[in-house]
């Protein structure tokens, strides 16, 4: 009972924070226009590079548009625990949460949930806007299947990816407990590496061996594959296989994340870092 | 010689239909080499006055001058001869040493590196910063950061220095060291120190004169001793249990100028301080305490402090005034 109350309260607070009610227009702009611009940037790179070689295909354009839209959102809510701990140290909120009966893990889970709820519709907006913008700019729409089934399947993939994102968030959060400066350094690198290794923009097979093995081990790769199976290839078998790997990989990453975070908090408490003032 | 002067100075803030009068009809003359205190609760207008004098804020009406120059229109003449420091400020670049920060700020005044070296050596010694000067700012404790901040405020050899609660959140020894430094700067170097504070002890310790400010108005401006002799009234302190739920019954009594209360929750005791017009008011106070079934654990007469002066002038203490301002 207490656990779900803590998660709900944290989600409510995270929602207030994410939506930035003091300036909803700016908040909406940041959440939709900025990621859409990133998606279109990647699409434009593909269009330019492939057109001159006569290799442009709408299928491949769709591959990039879907991947780039999803990548931006996963990156956003995997970063939430780091942001929550960092701002919590600054405002003294983090130590206050730490000493509550439920402590910080449900709090961070709630914050991630809020970010997820806020980001998921943005994926849809990015996809829709990118679809029409691509049509206008490149003269050819990406071959994205917009049906009830494909939307439901993609939504399911996003939901099943939540444990993986949360697990990654806890791992990154473990690092931010110990640092009082440059907390965003590690998440920036991880976010960039995900762009390369999670098949967000290109298949892992183009990477030199043994780098594709990293992609195979990441649950986020299967989020991309499942979503593309739903939105582009209409392949139920690929979808279900990828969802299986995503669920399993997500569960493992979540367990690793929780264990790592607990260890980190124990060690930080031992060293007196939980309430170390950020100057 | 008068170095800071204001004439009917006023400042209003307008936002979304709300009009806040932060300062009204402020007349002040501060002399060279004086430590001038500005005493009042939070929200009284101390920081607003300092912001106007330091050229950060324009007055709404009338004038203020520093060394004869108008703060509104002659900032280029004023800025080279003033400086400022605030308490609880983090004004320094974290990844640079204290010495590096002080050098940087000295360059904003066009000071040569040779002059800087001489000044920083003297300031470092006076503020007991030796040994910390080459450490990066993010490694310094609050006390040493504040010493660095104070040193920064004197690096350009200013004629007037504005201090806005410089010892807030500092330990007793550091606060004392800074006060001694400020008093010495005024005495030895004829600098004018304009000190805004709500710390009574600080004001009594180093200020030559004190202006008491409340709701944007200067109520009185004299030396601390003069204020206590002429405006200080007897205060009686009583420790009672249980703490009374409201002080209204006391404040409305004839002869009682004001009441302040601090509570010790562990002992379930309230320390009530009564500022009275005449000693005869004590009888009414004792009768009221008895009727409220409060037990008096101890009581004594207290020599006037500046808080009693404030209560006598305004009718409530700093804490009570700040609560009123907030609501």
């Amino acid at each position, binding site marked *: 009972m207490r656990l779900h109350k803590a998660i709900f309260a944290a989600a409510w607070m995270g929602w207030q924070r994410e939506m930035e009610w003091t300036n909803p227009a700016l908040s909406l702009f940041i959440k939709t226009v900025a990621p859409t611009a990133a998606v279109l940037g990647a699409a434009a790179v593909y269009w330019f590079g492939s057109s001159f070689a006569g290799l442009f295909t709408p299928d491949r354009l769709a591959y990039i548009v879907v991947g780039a839209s999803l990548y931006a959102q996963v990156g956003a809510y995997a970063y939430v625990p780091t942001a929550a701990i960092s701002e919590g140290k600054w405002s003294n909120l983090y130590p206050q949460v730490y000493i509550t009966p439920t402590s910080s893990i449900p709090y961070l889970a709630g914050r991630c949930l809020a970010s997820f709820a806020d980001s998921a519709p943005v994926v849809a907006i990015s996809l829709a806007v990118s679809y029409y913008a691509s049509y206008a700019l490149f003269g050819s729409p990406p071959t994205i299947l917009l049906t009830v089934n494909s939307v439901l399947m993609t939504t399911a993939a996003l939901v099943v990816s939540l444990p993986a994102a949360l697990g990654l968030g806890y791992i990154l959060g473990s690092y931010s407990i110990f640092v009082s400066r440059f907390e965003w350094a590690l998440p920036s690198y991880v976010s960039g590496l995900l762009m390369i290794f999670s098949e967000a923009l290109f298949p892992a097979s183009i990477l030199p061996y043994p780098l594709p093995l990293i992609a195979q081990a990441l649950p986020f790769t299967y989020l991309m594959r499942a979503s593309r199976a739903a939105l582009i290839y209409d392949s139920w078998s690929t979808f279900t296989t990828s969802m299986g790997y995503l669920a399993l990989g997500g569960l493992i990453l979540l367990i690793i994340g929780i264990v790592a975070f607990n260890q980190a908090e124990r060690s930080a408490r031992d060293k007196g870092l939980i309430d170390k003032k950020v100057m | 010689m008068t170095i800071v002067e204001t004439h009917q100075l006023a*400042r209003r803030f307008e936002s979304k239909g709300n009009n806040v009068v932060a300062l009204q009809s402020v007349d002040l003359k501060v002399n060279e080499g004086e430590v001038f205190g500005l005493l009042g609760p939070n929200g009284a207008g101390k920081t607003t006055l300092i912001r106007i004098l330091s050229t950060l804020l*324009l007055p709404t009406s009338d004038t203020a001058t520093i060394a004869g120059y108008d703060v509104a229109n002659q900032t280029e003449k004023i800025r080279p001869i003033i400086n400022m420091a605030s308490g609880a400020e*983090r004004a320094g670049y974290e990844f640079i040493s204290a010495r590096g920060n002080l050098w940087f700020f000295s360059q904003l005044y066009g000071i040569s590196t040779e002059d800087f070296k001489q000044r920083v050596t003297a300031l470092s010694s006076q503020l007991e910063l030796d040994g910390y000067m080459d450490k990066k700012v993010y490694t310094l404790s609050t006390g040493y950061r504040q010493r660095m901040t104070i040193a920064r405020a004197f690096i350009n050899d200013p004629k007037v220095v504005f201090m806005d609660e410089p010892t807030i959140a500092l330990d007793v020894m550091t606060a004392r060291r800074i006060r001694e430094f400020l008093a010495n700067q005024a005495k030895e170097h004829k600098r004018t120190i304009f000190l805004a504070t709500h710390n009574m002890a600080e004001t009594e310790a180093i200020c030559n004169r004190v202006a008491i400010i409340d709701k944007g108005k200067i109520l009185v401006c004299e030396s601390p001793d003069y204020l206590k002799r002429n405006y200080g009234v007897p205060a009686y302190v009583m420790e009672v249990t249980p703490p009374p739920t409201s002080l209204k019954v006391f404040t409305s009594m004839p002869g009682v100028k004001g009441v302040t209360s601090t509570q010790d929750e562990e002992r379930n005791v309230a320390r009530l301080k009564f500022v009275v017009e005449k000693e005869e008011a004590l009888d009414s106070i004792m009768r009221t305490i008895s009727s409220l079934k409060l037990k008096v654990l101890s009581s004594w007469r207290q020599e006037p402090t500046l808080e009693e002066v404030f209560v006598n002038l305004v009718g409530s203490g700093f804490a009570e005034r700040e609560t009123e301002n907030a609501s």
Partner: protein
Amino acid sequence: MQANLNLWLRSAYSRAWVRVKSTYGEPVWLAVNLAVPLLSSLAMALLYQSTGLSKYTGFAIVGGIMLAFWGNVLWSMASQFNWDKEVGIFEIYLISPAPISALLVGMSLGGILATAPSAALVALIGWAFFSTSISPSWLAVFLTFILTLASLYAMGMLLSSLYLAYGREAESLNNAIGEPINFLSGIYFPSIGTGSPFPFALQIAASLIPLTIGMDALRKSVFYADGISAIWLNLLILAAMSAILLFLGDKALKVLENRGRREGTLVVRLR
């Protein structure tokens, strides 16, 4: 006059020194500054490679180099004064006789020097991975690079003035404009001229951004040996933009300072 010049130069130099010393004194800054431009440009280079045409991977590397500087302009120039305001340094600037324009120029020069190692690493690592061939006209490359930086940092000065008016939303504004400007300016692909996917009207709009003009000229001078005679118009526009943006930035700061003094919004501090 001499005294004013002396003060201006000391203020600019010392502000540049603070920026350089902060970065080189904490090596982790170099790693932090490297993350986004390096990984982003590697990802785009791999994307080019996956399209079947590896020859454009160099576009991604050059984009990554300029992204390092653009990121510095956004995060260390445009929003710097807001951070300074929050910790109480900005009011010290205001009450000192130092001209704010000197501090801005100092921040710019310091920012360029502090970012240079990250940009160089992006270039080195990128070329090591992809072995892209280049055909540079070095004088044109040098002039383009200098003028692009000048106009970018002049834009940063203007943004820092405007951000003062927006206060705490500065970080949100950076997040809002970063990616759209990357896209419109064609940091990784030509957004104007040959190969641009944009309609003419959008190309004109994109050309108002200094980064667009600079990227176009850089690609031409680095990969196609276009000399000054081929990109003179780009260079002229960049020079004009630098001057205009510097002027606007200085004016905007003065207007905002006066407004701030009147309305009492100059100083907002976290206590």
